[in-house]
């Protein structure tokens, strides 16, 4: 313990940097989602109420709403204003309209959405190339009247920024396409116009081009009829000796509505558009990945369900009997070793059972405790601390039986565990057997979560992998091996932090079968604290990465482990957890900003499927379903812990950080917590 404490400061520094980065990336993701929504959300549309203006009172063409009561600018009676309004993609109409304007030598006001300005700057160029002026309609083209004030201001400011970037100007003209005529300016539209007016915008209100008379603005939507309607209007204007003109001129504004901007404003606009494109890209990637990942997870759920049921109906029968050596590597296991040894010697195994405890340099008197027990058939090997693989190898070297069982120093066997575990060795192709590790300290929430995880892992994933002959790990808590096989692979390697995975892969790669005996139970102690759980999983996760890297050649060897086991682990233990935080942030964001029902339904469906699988797993393991109430809560804390561990181990592997084996803190009072 003291050595670990002394190493804490540097370890903390190493951890801090990736977490700061992760938080920044998730903040960036949130910003992307918000910006994407701001710049693309088209709104739902709304019902338009009665106009706030008197139908008989003069209205238009331009309202100054910066003051209250508002002030109308009177239109030049000898002119008619031309307002071309973006109602969607105006690119096709814009060229025809520009041709008509050029042919008649007429200038017009173009009211464009920010989205058009950003995506089709050619339209801005068309609008401005002949002395025309540009007004705006908002960024997305949605009805601004349905937006709260802060969103409305954002629509306007982002559109101005886009115009600054693409047209090098700002504008003071606003038209609400959904309230382009006075009769359609209802209370909500008026409020929106008032908010814009306080910022300095003038609201342009017009009439249909067919109804336009002197002093009014003819509003022509930029659709496929635009050039025809414009030409007709200009024809009639000429007949009535009306001068077609932009809105600012009609309304008698001093100067144009467009004001040139400086480099800073342009740069700001460009940055906004670039940020918007980045946000679109982020959302596109997420949307592209969503269905493949969903399908993948569904296939995995379905396959593991089918495989689990099949495996449960086709257990590996065997009848091997003979003397067995049980190896117990122990490092500072004084709190639990006595129970472990007693459970082993009480095994119902009449064909001879020896226990070899290897005290790997414990400092808590584990060795003395074992010696003081004085149980016949229990042997003690003491060595300076050299690590678990070395401890196991020392015992393997001392073992004289054909079959060796390995068990952790904190794990207890049932009386029939050994018999059930070694039975499959009657098949000479079987090289090793995995048992079923179960969590005994499951009363507290953390233990309960691990209990659920173990039951699901051992009854779904492990059965699926067993069916595919692709079991990647025989857990250190309970496994049986032919001594011949262990010697064949050169004993237990200390190349990785997950020596059990490394060993299992080595055995499988030599062509030996690895089976799973779900009724060979081992009661193991799960970490009590989140910190210990973190360190344990960190070691497993990092060690599994090491083992998979070490045995990467297996993917070319046409065995289950390379064809199924390793791709499965790469996908579900390494790659998908890396995207866990993204999924959580997206779900949380969507839940908080609307679309709540859909997200809630998706979450409920996911939880329902997960719960269904858990129920099947618990039934297969003959476990009570009671602890499953903690399953939905698993999504809130436990899952995050797991994917953060996966991320940290991947980062450590990539950066080449040196790790220490972090010994779990053993709680002395385990009997008090036993269920």
């Amino acid at each position, binding site marked *: 313990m003291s050595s670990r404490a002394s190493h804490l400061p540097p370890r903390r520094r190493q951890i801090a940097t990736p977490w700061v980065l992760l938080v*920044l990336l998730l903040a960036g993701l949130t910003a992307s989602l918000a910006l994407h929504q701001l710049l693309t959300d088209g709104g739902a549309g709304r019902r338009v109420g009665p106009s706030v203006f008197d139908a008989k009172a003069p209205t238009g063409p331009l309202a100054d709403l910066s003051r209250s009561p508002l002030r109308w600018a009177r239109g030049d009676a000898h002119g008619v204003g031309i307002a071309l309004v973006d109602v969607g993609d105006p690119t096709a109409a814009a060229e025809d309209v520009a041709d008509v304007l050029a042919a008649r030598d007429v200038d017009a006001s173009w009211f464009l959405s920010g989205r058009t300005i950003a995506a089709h700057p050619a339209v801005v160029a068309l609008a401005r190339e002949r002395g025309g002026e540009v007004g705006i309609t908002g960024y997305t083209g949605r009805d601004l009247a349905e937006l709260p004030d802060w969103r409305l201001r954002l629509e306007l400011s982002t559109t101005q920024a886009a115009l600054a970037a693409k047209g090098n100007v700002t504008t003071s003209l606003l038209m609400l396409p959904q309230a382009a005529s006075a009769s359609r300016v209802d209370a909500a539209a*008026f409020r929106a116009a008032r908010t814009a007016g306080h910022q300095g915008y003038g609201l342009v209100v017009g009439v249909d081009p067919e109804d336009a008379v002197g002093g009014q603005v003819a509003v022509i939507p930029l659709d496929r009829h635009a050039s025809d309607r414009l030409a007709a209007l200009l024809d009639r204007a000429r007949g009535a000796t009306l001068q077609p003109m932009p809105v600012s001129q009609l309304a*008698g504004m001093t100067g144009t509505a467009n004001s040139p*901007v400086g480099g800073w404003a342009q740069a700001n606009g460009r940055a906004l558009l670039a940020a918007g494109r980045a946000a679109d890209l982020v959302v596109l990637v997420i949307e592209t990945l969503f269905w493949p990942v969903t399908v993948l997870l569904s296939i995995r759920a379905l396959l593991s369900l089918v495989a689990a049921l099949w495996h449960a109906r086709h257990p590996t029968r065997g009848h091997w009997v003979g003397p067995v050596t049980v190896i117990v590597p122990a490092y500072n296991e004084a709190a639990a070793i006595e129970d472990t040894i007693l459970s082993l010697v009480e095994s119902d195994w009449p064909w001879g059972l020896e226990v070899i405890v290897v005290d790997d340099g414990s400092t808590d008197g584990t060795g003395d405790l074992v010696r003081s027990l004085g149980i016949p058939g229990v042997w003690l090997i003491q060595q300076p601390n050299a690590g678990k693989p070395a401890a196991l190898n020392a015992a393997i070297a001392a073992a004289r039986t054909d079959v060796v069982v390995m068990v952790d120093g904190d794990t207890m066997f049932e009386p029939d565990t050994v018999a059930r575990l070694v039975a499959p060795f009657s098949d000479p192709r079987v090289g090793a057997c995995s048992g079923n590790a179960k969590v005994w300290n499951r009363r507290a929430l953390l233990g309960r979560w691990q209990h659920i995880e173990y039951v699901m892992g051992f009854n779904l994933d492990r059965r699926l992998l067993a069916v595919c002959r692709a079991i990647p790990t025989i857990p250190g808590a309970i496994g049986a091996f032919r001594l011949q096989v262990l010697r064949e692979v050169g004993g237990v390697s200390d190349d990785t932090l997950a020596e059990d995975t490394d060993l299992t892969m080595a055995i499988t790669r030599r062509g030996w079968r690895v089976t799973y005996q779900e009724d060979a139970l081992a009661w193991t102690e799960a970490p009590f604290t989140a910190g210990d759980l973190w360190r344990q999983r960190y070691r497993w996760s990092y060690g599994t990465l090491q083992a998979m890297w070490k045995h990467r050649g297996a993917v070319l060897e046409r065995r289950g482990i390379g064809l199924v086991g390793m791709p499965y682990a790469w996908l579900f233990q390494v790659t998908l957890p890396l995207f866990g935080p993204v999924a959580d942030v997206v779900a949380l964001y969507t839940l908080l900003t609307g679309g709540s029902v859909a997200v809630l339904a998706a979450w409920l469906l996911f939880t329902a499927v997960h719960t269904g699988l858990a129920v099947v797993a618990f039934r297969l393991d003959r476990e009570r379903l009671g602890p499953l109430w903690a399953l939905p809560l698993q999504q809130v804390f436990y899952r995050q812990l797991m994917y953060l561990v996966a991320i940290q181990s991947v980062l450590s592997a990539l950066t080449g950080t040196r790790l220490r084996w972090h010994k779990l803190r053993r709680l002395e009072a385990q009997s008090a917590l036993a269920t």
Partner: protein
Amino acid sequence: MFVDDTGKRRRIARLIGTSTGGLALAYVSFVGATFAGVPGLGRLDVPGLGQLTNPAGDQADVGEHPVEQAVPAAVADQPGASTTTTGPGGAAGPPSGPGSSTSMSTTSTTAPATTTVHGNSNATPNSTVPDKGGGPPTSHPGGGG
């Protein structure tokens, strides 16, 4: 395995991490400034309308807070009183053919009589709107015409 004692990979990772983190920080700050409407960053000045050379005068028939006062929910929900937003609104009817019969006259809206009724505070169809700064038409200093 994986351990790099030279520290080279770690330095590269730190470089990548720092630049990625810096980029993310800049992005978040910029988007945050945009959302907060920081002047000059995210929000540009609106040029304004300048001096309108021919104002028609103040219109007093619309309240300062029309949302709260102008349209009672009952009115807004009457099917006959409402229309659903589609496209560009009332100004976007089907195009009339060339040579539309609509007459275009320079005189129809320039009659002083029409522009001087601007201040009629009772003109709004929403009778629930109280006169705010309304009063007799003649009281408006900005009365044009």
